[in-house]
């Protein structure tokens, strides 16, 4: 099970799904969408209610792992390890902007916009930072999960009691 070189930027399709359970397959599609939706909700409202980038990232990872288990290929069309540097860079740069404007590093800013559709609506730069956290957490947990699903099955553990 060798991966194609990372430069292609696509996740290698695994040879076979981990399971052929038809019930899992038919329900996972709906569940996948629901979980993703909920994850984005968590990310969006994190500033004012329970939620945030970390949790949303974990939830997204759960959804993607479920998809991977049910269908055998990743719903994410790129190597999840590539999300790690992007997430880190986004969070870092978000923090850098206030610093360059002469305020403390990572100081967040917020304000209110009123539009006809949404009514009064708060924006916060912290959300950008959270998106960075989100990307990194998705990348990291998926990297670990995919690495573990690709372990060659002939490996056994010795010395285990």
């Amino acid at each position: 099970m060798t991966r194609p070189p990372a430069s292609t930027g696509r996740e290698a399709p695994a040879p076979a799904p981990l399971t052929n359970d038809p019930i899992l397959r038919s329900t996972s599609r709906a569940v996948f969408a629901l979980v993703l939706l909920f994850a984005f909700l968590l990310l969006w409202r994190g500033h004012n209610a329970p939620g945030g980038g970390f949790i949303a990232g974990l939830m997204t990872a759960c959804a993607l792992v479920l998809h991977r288990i049910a269908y055998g290929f990743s719903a994410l069309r790129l190597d999840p390890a590539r999300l790690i540097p992007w997430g880190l860079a986004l969070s870092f740069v978000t923090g850098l902007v206030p610093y360059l404007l002469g305020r403390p590093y990572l100081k967040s800013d917020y304000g209110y916009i009123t539009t006809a559709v949404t009514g009064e609506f708060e924006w916060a730069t912290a959300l950008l930072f959270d998106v960075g956290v989100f990307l990194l957490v998705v990348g990291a947990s998926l990297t670990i999960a995919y690495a573990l699903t690709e372990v060659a099955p002939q490996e056994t553990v010795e010395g285990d009691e």
Partner: protein
Amino acid sequence: MTVAVFFPFLMAALAAWLGPRLGRRTGYVAAAAFLPALLLIPDLLRMPGAAPALEVTRWVPTLDLDLAFRGDGFSLLFAVLIGVIGTLASLYSVAYLSERERFGRFYSYLLLFGGSMLGLVLTDNLVALFGFWEMTSVTSFLLIGLWHTRSAARDGAVKAFLVSALGGLALLAAVALIALGGGSTSLSALDVGALRESAYFTPALLLTLLAAFTKSAQLPFHLWLPTAMEAPTPVSAFLHSATMVKAGVVLVAKFGLLFGGAALWSAIIVPVGLATLVWGSWLALRQTDLKALLAYSTVSQLGLLMSLYGLADAEGRFSATAHLLNHAAFKAALFFVVGIIDHETGTRELPLLGGLRRALPVTFAVALLAALSMAGLPPLGGFISKELFFEAMLHQGPLFIAVAVVGSALTFAYSLRLLRVFLGTPRAPAGAEPHEAPPGLTLPAAGLALTALAFGVLPGTAEALTRTAQSALNFADYDGYLSLWHGVTPALLATLLTWALGAVLVWQARGMETLGRRLTPRVNANTVYYGLTQTVNVFSSWLIARTQGLPLPDQLRIMLAAAALMGGYAVWRAPQVFYPFGELPLGVLPIAALLVAGAVGVLLSRGRLTAVIVTGLTGFGSAAAFLAFRAPDLALTQLLVEAVTVILFLLAFRYLPGVRDLPRTRWRYVFDVAVAGLAGVGITLLVLSSVRFLAPPISPYYLEYSYKGGGGKNVVNVLLVDFRGFDTLGEITVVGMVALAVLSLVRLGKPGRPRRAPDDTAELPARRRP
């Protein structure tokens, strides 16, 4: 100046991105990155009179840590030097590198390196100085190891890094001591008098010297520089002529203003520098690889510069600065020439080459000018600065001038030896048809060679440049001047003696070779280095075998026993463990029962899968506990972490030998239960005893300010992304690194993926087990 330092860093990111897209043309982008450094030229030209500019960017003001850049004459001179050679090296590599090179990686490393070096020479803050110093070590490691599939490149990179990192640690300590003694981290605001009085003075001096010697490859740390030639040739030119290896010289020149008054300073540097001059040039004379010859010649020239700056008087600083300019010009030109020879003939071995002057006339002219400047012949710049060197050494005493003459005679000899590839009957390896290199290769070299010529024919140019550093290096009142002819002086006589000796060395080349072979010491810096690294390897594998060799269950038992002991210790030290902390919230009792049930369930479960799932129970129980204490954020996080952990566990366990009974003897089972139980009790006691140290809670502050300051009603989130955002950034970095570590661990275990490069069979020398 701030722009000049940071622009290359920005462009490095751009070059990394452009590299795969533009290919070799990325070199033009890289050359543009040094533009802000070149824009410092007008500042430099105003220099002998103008006051140095100071640009301060606040960084961590509470720690007296700023990004301060100070454009005094010497710093600007060096920055412009880096800019010029950096530009030329970038342009040269466009024509030099092969089509298969990974351009993005090469140019971004080159620019990171150039930026760190610019920062190093321009910075006025001691802590930032250390930072840039270490960055040059790291980036040069990357550059030397660029062709990392070759074991020689890896070895050279590791060697350079280990040696210069040793010096880096010394510099860190020195910087701390100087800041303590001088009362400031700003180089220009240091109280030199207080520093001289303080007890930190001598240790700081010695540590600074260690740093400078390791970086500038002085004896006995010269071993890393010749192996650093594994880097691509344009990099070598940059590294040797303008940057990395001169960092130590820069340090000695700048810190000479602090330490120069001490007798110890000159008493150590000058002998070490002169010894390096002689030994380096002696080794250079014996090399057959052209690039190795140049590398050892750099070692010797650095010795010369060190000894002059180490004198810490006006004469030494003036002469050293003049020679610094000459050296940059001729050494970069010579590296470019060797690159051309390598490019055209496919080899750098001296015995295989000859008579190249017919095929490469322009290159020959360039090499002639540069090599004769290095040899110290008129009318080239090298001659003038060599006269100044002799002049300075004459003032020190007969022994000094004698050593200087011997070293220079050897320099003369190896410079002429270098030219042998152009003379005699044409000779080149079979298949190679050398012809004149493309202008992309010859033009940078020719420009530098002409500069070397100009420094000699028009001494005023070199003198004006040298004078710019006068106020920064404190030789304003020095009345020396640069001139080709200054009468029949003792220095001129010394030069004539040098030529005579050098001519004898060239004439008796064969005899010198036998002598050299006989004089080779069995133990040299390299054998010591390999001996040391080998010993460390053997020791660490011994240590790992002794400490990490236990089966996993035994390691766990030890950890749990330690936890139990810590709890016992806490109770013993603080018997009043049961500090009154108010009424127990009865609502959490069921949750506690759930947690305990989970823990006991793990013990009772007879299969792996059940054990994992029951372990999950304790995790979900903790989430419930968080909910009971009204922390929905934590509970949510805990729930998700638990879910993901259980999934990961199950994924990892798929391939273990199925669900089966865990074979255990009854005795061992009882023992494990006892250890685990004790550890649980111990940790509980530890937590309870720590309750005594509760400080007043900090939550009211965050409750009050999270909405006012951060604009969020979710205190936890505001805390994470704003108040303690920096912590979060550190944490997610750790998360990312853990993921990459797991990835590499899992991938390394895969069959069919070689863990070492195929050419690893060519092992390092001295790979023997004691």
